[in-house]
């Protein structure tokens, strides 16, 4: 059962070991030993962290480690393209270190630790037990041995550059973490990109004093509006997601062919150049394969295989004094711990909100939207609600608190038999916060 749940992670682990072995061809024993040791350290580290710390901390730590590895890949990819396009750039001492046994061992142990942590997060969470984790390390060990055997049968011409190896390892790490909502990086990245692009475009327009939308033709504003749309987060995230692998592929492609001007035999020159071109093509396989892995991770992140509690919003009306009253008991039990959605319409305006009993036993009333994302609403999973737009998980005990991607809280009065909400307050809150995140529909900044 554990192995079935971990199929993506175990495939990733197999791929990581295979790539590391091919990337350090003369250091197979070092790579094998350190990678499986790293994996075991990662699994046991996760076990102790989940036992001794609140679950948010280990998840946060693993997610940060994944984020750092992605940033490192970005840095390496920029350096690689810089080296390949510049003249007379020598190999740095850092690049030389990679090919030593210390470099190989460090890389393999780090990859092992992170993969071990991700696998342990996937199966255990807070209720993991030791035999399960021991079984996991055993399977990882078997896969390492299989990878060792498979690697020996791969064609010798299939070489991997250090930057290509890093791309593949990071791609596989992100792929294996993307099936866990709390470790996934792509969806939060998309959300941050959307916010960043919105802010940047807004600031840019203010900086160069571009007139407001009322003065600009709607066709022109339509194009500007694309930058404020929901899709900009997804496509911007895709660009950031894939760019490092593309840059590394380009860096390999732009590598200067060896200088053969000093060779006076044409056939020898051509042979040298043909060998160099063939070698470049082989080096390109790993980053191109990594692109496919990145795509699979983005897909898995965008279409997670989890079902959420998401009831259809119940229409509600306000009394003549403008008060919306929702009884605690009746067809719907507000205190059952589930999220209950409502829709309030008045004079052509509408607002969607929900009522939820927090784990601390407090009722909370919130807009079915946050102040950052487009108002796609929330669904409830175990212990959290999820923003459908950016896939951010909000722990249930923080619902009702403002900020970030949390649902926007609404003032209400709790009575003995129900909750009372001011209709005008609700509509104003929807207008002032949610409409600001849906600028495209409004055609404004």
């Amino acid at each position, binding site marked *: 059962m554990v192995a079935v749940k971990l199929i993506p992670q175990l495939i990733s682990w197999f791929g990581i070991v295979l790539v590391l072995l091919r990337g350090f061809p003369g250091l197979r024993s070092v790579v094998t030993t350190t990678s499986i040791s790293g994996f075991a350290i990662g699994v046991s580290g996760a076990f102790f962290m989940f036992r001794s710390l609140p679950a948010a901390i280990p998840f946060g730590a693993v997610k940060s480690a994944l984020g750092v590895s992605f940033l490192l890949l970005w840095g390496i990819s920029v350096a690689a393209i810089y080296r390949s396009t510049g003249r007379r750039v020598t190999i740095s001492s850092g690049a030389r270190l990679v090919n030593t046994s210390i470099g190989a061992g460090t890389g393999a142990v780090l990859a092992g630790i992170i993969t071990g942590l991700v696998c342990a997060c996937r199966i255990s969470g807070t209720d993991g037990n030791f035999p399960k984790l021991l079984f996991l390390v055993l399977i990882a060990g078997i896969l390492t041995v299989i990878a060792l055997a498979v690697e020996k049968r791969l064609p010798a011409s299939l070489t991997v550059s250090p930057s290509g190896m890093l791309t593949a390892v990071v791609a596989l790490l992100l792929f294996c973490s993307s099936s866990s909502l709390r470790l996934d990086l792509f969806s939060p990245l998309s959300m941050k990109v959307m916010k*960043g692009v919105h802010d940047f475009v807004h600031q840019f327009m203010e900086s160069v004093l571009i007139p407001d939308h009322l003065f*600009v033709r709607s066709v022109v504003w339509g194009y500007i509006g694309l930058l404020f749309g929901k899709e900009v987060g997804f496509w911007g995230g895709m660009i950031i997601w894939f760019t490092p692998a593309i840059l590394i592929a380009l860096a390999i492609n732009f590598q200067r062919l060896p200088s053969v*001007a000093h060779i*006076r035999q044409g056939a020898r020159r051509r042979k040298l150049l043909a060998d160099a071109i063939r070698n470049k093509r082989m080096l390109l396989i790993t980053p191109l394969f990594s692109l496919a892995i990145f795509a699979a991770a983005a897909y898995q992140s965008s279409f997670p295989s989890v079902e959420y509690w998401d009831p259809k919003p119940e229409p509600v009306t306000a009394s003549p004094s403008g008060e919306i009253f929702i009884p605690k008991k009746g067809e719907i039990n507000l205190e059952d711990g589930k999220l209950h959605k409502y829709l309030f319409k008045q004079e052509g305006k509408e607002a969607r909100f929900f009522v939820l009993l927090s784990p601390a036993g407090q009722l909370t009333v919130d807009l079915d939207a946050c102040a950052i994302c487009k108002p796609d609403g929330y669904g409830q999973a175990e212990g959290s609600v999820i923003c459908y737009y950016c896939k951010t998980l909000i722990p249930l005990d923080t619902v009702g608190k403002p900020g970030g991607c949390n649902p926007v809280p609404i003032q209400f009065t709790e009575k003995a038999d129900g909750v009372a909400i001011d209709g005008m307050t609700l509509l104003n809150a929807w207008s002032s916060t949610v409409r600001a995140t849906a600028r495209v529909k409004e055609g404004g900044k």
Partner: protein
Amino acid sequence: MKRLLQTILTAASSRALPPLVVGFFFLVYIGIAFFTNETLITLMAFTRNSLILDGILALIPLNSALRILQETCWHLKKRRVLNGKTSDVKPALFDESVELTAAPSFSDLQSRLGAVGYKTRRSENAVTAWRGASIFPARILFLAGTFCLFTGILISITTRTSHRQMVVEGEPLPVPEGIGGRVERITLANSSGPILRKTLTMEVAPSSSGYGKRVFGIYPPSMYGGSFVYPRYLGLALLLRFSAPDLPAGIEKHSILNCYPPGKEASEEIPGSPYRIVFSIPEPVAGSDRYISYMTGNVTLKFKLLKGKEVLFSGSAPGGGEFVRDGYRLAFPDIRRLVVTDYIGDYGVFFIWVAALLFIGAGCIWLPVRLFFPRREMLFRYDQGVATACSLAEGGARTHAGVFHEMLDMIDARRGEASVV
């Protein structure tokens, strides 16, 4: 000391510096994103208040300026070598450089290079061959654009000031440093331009403080008293008279209503009373311009009168008209056009505009040149029994290298072994 200066100069003019600086700011941005959702604004505020961050950002324009100088020097040196004005051939100026102990036949080289499409120039002891156009002008424009862009950003972030004022028709123009001339007319009209659908002009009479008659448009914004006049939103300046059964004396007050586009609500408190009036502009009839009331000046205001949270009644009245019900009276004796205007003190904007033009220019040169006419150059020189051959290609390098190797073979065929550099 000289060595230290040289090291600093090399670092400051390195191609790696701009990506490093951008990467640094990107990391700071990511760090800030953990703590606030207003990441960009916070980063801008940090940069505005931190000399260190300003200094780091200033490295990019410094780097661009140094690279312009450095690359111009390289280009001129290369030109001098190719023109035969100097015999000091530095291999660093070319992609490949080879020395052969053979005496080349310059006329054979010239005819062969001419046959494969190269233009040639022959001097006493050298042959130069080239084809295509250099991307050097595009590169310089790009570097100048980068210089202007980051200088503009730096100036803008560190010195920008912004004052929001209400420009009301018939009233003196409010400016940050005092009072300007009277706003004679505000005109909103349809435009036939490809980008703007409306034009807005604010005509201002000469002021006592020395400013002549001015007309302000939308874009590019004009300057007045050292600040850009940046019209933002449209509104109305209303003279409101209100009386109620429990407020028989009534009140008269001037109100600023930020109520465009039609449907947008602007609320006005009646001071010292529980009353509040919510104004809006009704949507015009289908087919009419949404801003027709602003354009013509025939404004009808919709309103809701609230006492506390209770809506007493709603209605509408035209400018100059009044509304009376149940002892309540609302009159709108004067409604004038208003433009919510920002006065922006920011000279960085000029640099950003210039940068945009330079980038467009660089792109327009670079793309066709790089795709269709990339520069390829060769130099063959014979001095003191040694033939020096140099090659450079900005594009089409593989074909160019083939021709270069063929020329080397031709030279070598005349003597035999080549010495390798």
